């Protein structure tokens, strides 16, 4: 069995052994889960040094000429992604040992984490669409289980359900796209598809439709507009889960999948344009919404949405025609590069938020915090590093990757402007958050009593902060993307972006310094453009309305007229049924059976 297969299966073994055997022993369960994550990380270090190529295959399903395989493929981007998954995964596991120390459902929590690691590795290592779809769904269910970890809380139960259902809507499109491709080409393997597309030409409108459908999967998983609504609610889950699943890895799966099918995006320019614009819209809208939230995790959630929008937009540029030629893989590499650096600083920010929440006795409202830099310096400083990286300040990792993304958007001025506005907003809302939470006076008793978190939780913060600083340097990414394959900005773009970032930070600081509430309140942003309300309305009108109508039709028409009507007819006419006016059911049914047998017999004889 290859190393890659062990990385894939070990977490499943851990999850299964917790569920089946040791779930009553919470600490042991936690250690088993952490150990599996640790071993996977070490194996990953071995894997990314090794040579590429196939890593083994297993025929999962075969019937009548259809073969679906669980087969692994290790490419450059796979290496980068699997490192993110196992490294951030391991750190989150360790952080959780502290964060979930006294939780009643600890064993269940760690089993869920391990199940997630299994599913996520499957997406990363998949060499074909069918396998990716399988793990795509499994990631959805592990996210469901972890968001709903505190399932006895109504809000958590609702949030987990919403996340799963919204994702399923995306998956519907994803599956349809896979089927369209398969119908046309007869292939589902990524490399096989790429080769087929090179040698054969297909109807461009079919490819566009297929790609748009496949993109729906990414819209769901990576929470792009209009399916973004599940991600902010998903913050009901324990904070380490938000760091791992809803910031660094699972939500990035959509972007990862798109980078895997770059060749398809290049061949489908209309779909590429849809992808760019959906990404840009998400980046902008989410950043706007982030500026007016007061829950520390929700701010980070909207920030994640916005950054994912950046990545999607960049990947979409792969199919953008620049003087007749597609921008190509450079664009999707830029998107992936941002995914890579973002994983470090966003996981850091979420774990930092988790530490703050932990220290403030599960208070999440930033307006009840303040002055925490004095009480928890390690958390605060690492958090500020993450903020600087997210705002794109040189020489931190976010600076380099945002440069790469913005260099791609230089192909299209409107999107360049959207990107620049988003960059300003990003720096602004993060500065607002830090100013309120870490500086000034404490605004509540909980904030006054806060103290630094234990080593178990500090250590992951420090390691991630290191990652947030260095991940953008060539030695940290060059082993999976050659720097020559990344786009390079023209003109003074890096300088302009730096100025924009600094301006955002300064504005955010000056506006919120020493305040007790937001100086500017924009109702439409606070209410998140009323999108949730609109969806609720839609669901009620369409889903429930249609459903009730359908039920009424069912009872009135089909049951009432057709069934009862024909039943009356039968009863009225049938000799068999006339004897049924009195007496008991058993006899009637018996007679009925006898009748049928006699009828058959008579007909048989008559015909024979």
């Amino acid at each position, binding site marked *: 069995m290859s190393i890659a297969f062990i990385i894939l299966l070990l977490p499943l073994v851990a999850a299964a052994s917790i569920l089946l055997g040791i779930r009553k022993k919470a600490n042991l369960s936690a250690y088993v889960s952490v150990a599996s994550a640790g071993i996977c990380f070490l194996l990953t270090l071995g894997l990314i040094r090794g040579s590429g190529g196939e890593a083994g295959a297993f*025929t*999962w*399903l*075969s*019937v*009548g*000429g*259809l073969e*679906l395989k669980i087969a692994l493929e290790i490419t450059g981007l796979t290496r980068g992604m699997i490192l993110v998954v196992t490294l951030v995964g391991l750190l989150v596991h360790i952080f959780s040992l502290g964060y979930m120390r006294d939780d009643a459902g600890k064993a269940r929590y760690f089993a869920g984490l391990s199940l997630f690691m299994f599913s996520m590795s499957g997406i990363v290592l998949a060499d074909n669409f069918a396998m990716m779809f*399988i*793990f795509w*769904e499994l990631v959805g*269910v592990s996210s469901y289980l972890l968001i*709903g970890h505190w*399932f*006895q*809380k*109504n809000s958590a*139960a*609702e949030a*987990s*359900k919403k996340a*799963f*259902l919204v994702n*399923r*809507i995306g*998956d*519907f499109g994803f*599956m*349809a796209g896979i*089927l*369209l491709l*398969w*119908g046309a080409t007869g292939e589902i393997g990524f490399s096989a598809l790429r080769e087929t597309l090179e040698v054969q030409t297909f109807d461009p409108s079919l490819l566009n439709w297929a790609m748009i459908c496949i993109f729906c999967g990414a819209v769901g998983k990576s929470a792009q507009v209009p399916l973004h609504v599940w991600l902010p609610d998903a913050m009901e889950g324990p904070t380490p889960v938000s760091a791992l699943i809803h910031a660094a890895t699972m939500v990035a799966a959509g972007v990862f999948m798109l980078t895997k099918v770059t060749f398809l995006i290049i061949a489908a320019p209309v779909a590429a344009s849809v992808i760019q614009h959906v990404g840009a819209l998400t980046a902008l809208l989410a950043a706007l919404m982030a500026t007016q939230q007061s829950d520390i995790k929700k701010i980070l959630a909207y920030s994640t949405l916005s950054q994912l929008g950046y990545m999607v937009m960049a990947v979409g540029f792969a199919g953008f025609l620049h003087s007749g030629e597609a921008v190509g893989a450079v664009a999707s590499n830029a998107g992936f590069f941002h995914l890579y650096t973002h994983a470090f600083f966003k996981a850091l920010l979420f774990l930092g938020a988790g530490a703050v929440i932990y220290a403030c006795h599960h208070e999440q409202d930033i307006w009840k915090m303040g002055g925490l830099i004095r009480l928890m310096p390690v958390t605060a400083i690492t958090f500020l590093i993450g903020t600087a990286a997210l705002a794109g300040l040189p020489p931190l990792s976010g600076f380099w990757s945002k440069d790469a993304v913005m260099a791609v958007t230089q192909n299209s001025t409107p999107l360049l402007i959207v990107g620049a506005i988003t960059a300003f907003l990003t720096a602004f809302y993060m500065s607002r958050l830090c100013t309120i939470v870490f500086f000034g006076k404490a605004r509540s008793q909980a904030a006054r009593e806060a103290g630094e978190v234990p080593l178990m939780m500090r250590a992951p913060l420090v390691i991630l902060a290191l990652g947030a600083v260095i991940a953008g340097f060539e030695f940290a990414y060059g082993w999976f993307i050659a720097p020559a394959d990344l786009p390079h900005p023209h003109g003074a773009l890096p300088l302009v972006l730096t100025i924009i970032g600094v301006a955002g930070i300064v504005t955010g600081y000056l506006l919120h310094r020493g305040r007790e509430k937001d100086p500017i309140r924009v109702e439409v942003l606070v209410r998140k453009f009323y999108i949730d309300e609109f969806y609720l309305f839609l669901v009620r009108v369409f*889903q*429930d309305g249609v*459903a*009730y109508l*359908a*039920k009424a039709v*069912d009872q009135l028409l*089909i*049951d009432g007229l057709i*069934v009862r009507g024909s*039943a009356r007819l039968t*009863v009225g006419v049938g000799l068999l049924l006339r004897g049924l006016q009195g007496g008991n*059911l*058993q006899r009637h*049914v*018996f007679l*009925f*059976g006898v009748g*049928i*047998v006699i*009828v*058959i017999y008579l*007909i*048989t004889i008559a*015909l*024979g």
Partner: protein
Amino acid sequence: MTIIDLIIIIPILAAVAIGCGGSARVLALAAAWANLLLGLVVFVTLVAKGGDEMHFKSSWVLLHSPELTLGFAVDGMSGVLVLLTVIVTFCAVRVSSGDLGKGSGKLYYISLLLIAAGALGAFCATDLFFFYAFHELALIPTFLMIGIYGNGREKVATAWKITIYLGVGSLILLGGLIALYVSLSPPGAPTFDIAKLAPSPGEHPLSAEVQKWIFLPLLVGFGILVSLFPFHSWAAPAYAAAPTPVAMLHAGVLKKFGLYGMLRVAMPLLPEGFEAWKGLLLVLLLGNILYVGLVTISQRYLDRMIGNSSVMHMGYIFLGIACCNSIGWGGAVLMMFAHGISIALLFALCGSLRERLDTLEISRLGGLGGSMPFLAVTFGFAAFASIGLPGFANFASEITIFFAAFKDAGEMGILQVATILALWGVVISAVYMLRAYRSIFQGELIGERYPADLAQSMRLPVVLMIVILLLTGFFPNIILKLLPNLFEVL
């Protein structure tokens, strides 16, 4: 006497023995155990020998003209259904509870055994007459059980309703079968033998027009039995009213008779007949998936919701059948198996909820996961199996059917359009299942009672069914190995 004869006769003998005064539960359990083991032997043998041909043949000629033979045999498709039947029968007998209302439960266990025997006979019969007659044998005790041991005040009315409904369906089917017998029997040698009725490849004795009109009663007859839209409205009330083991056996096993009949009789014998009605069938199966799916969302009671979900999933099996290739048919049979187990599991769990709670109205329940963790977890497995999560056989069958519809489909035909629409059903089923699960097991506890968790005696069958779904979900080739070239074979 072959092992298949044994499998069919054991439940009948056990039923007779109970009738003669034997201990009902002990005998029923013994028969269920014996059949479970024999069923496994049959299955393993078929895996070794391959599922393309008939094995374990036996026959007793009863009449020479017309040729009427009591004969049984199994190929891959029958083998899968036999395995399904023995598993569900075993679990249904196991979950039968002590409280049987009247008497010692003699009639109760006799009925269960006869349902099982009837289903097994129908799936293995090589003769059109017994194919039909065994199904009738299974239906009659089903009606009885609902009327006598059912739930709710309307059980007798419900029993009547399905007696009439399915009776009419059976008669329409009978008409179609007789037409088959008359028109396809070789000249001068009338026969009921399905194999002898089958046309030789390439030359069909009937014109497309004749095939078309013989196919219609078969489609309607089988359709009624399988609750094909718009003939579905009997199903949910019947399952809600039926005692738990009967709901398990009927929805899990007996209802597959109609689908089996489509594949064994209607499609191979009248290939052009199907072509004529393909568009209609696609519309009707979308009725199952989309329309009944929406109806399922609007259900207020858990038992009715589960019953409707079962109706909805029949649409996917019909879709597999309509693909007319080995992938689709293999997927359809795999789904019969997967759905059979998962619906039986859902009804078993729903039944134990009914015993513990005052109501099954979803909105009046809440937060039960805290006090009944075992039931909550197993129900979660069942719910996720039912909505086709990877890892369960249900997913493997769904994805197989979807791929089948797009096999070599360079352009969008009606089959492909219907499949895209049918895909929407995966969202619909997630909506109703997760909504119910969230409402019943999650959130804050509603009410003051803390009902007890799943009884120990229920745990073995429940876990068994989950394990089987997972095993065949992780390794669907266990089942599919028996069905590699179903379309060509049939």
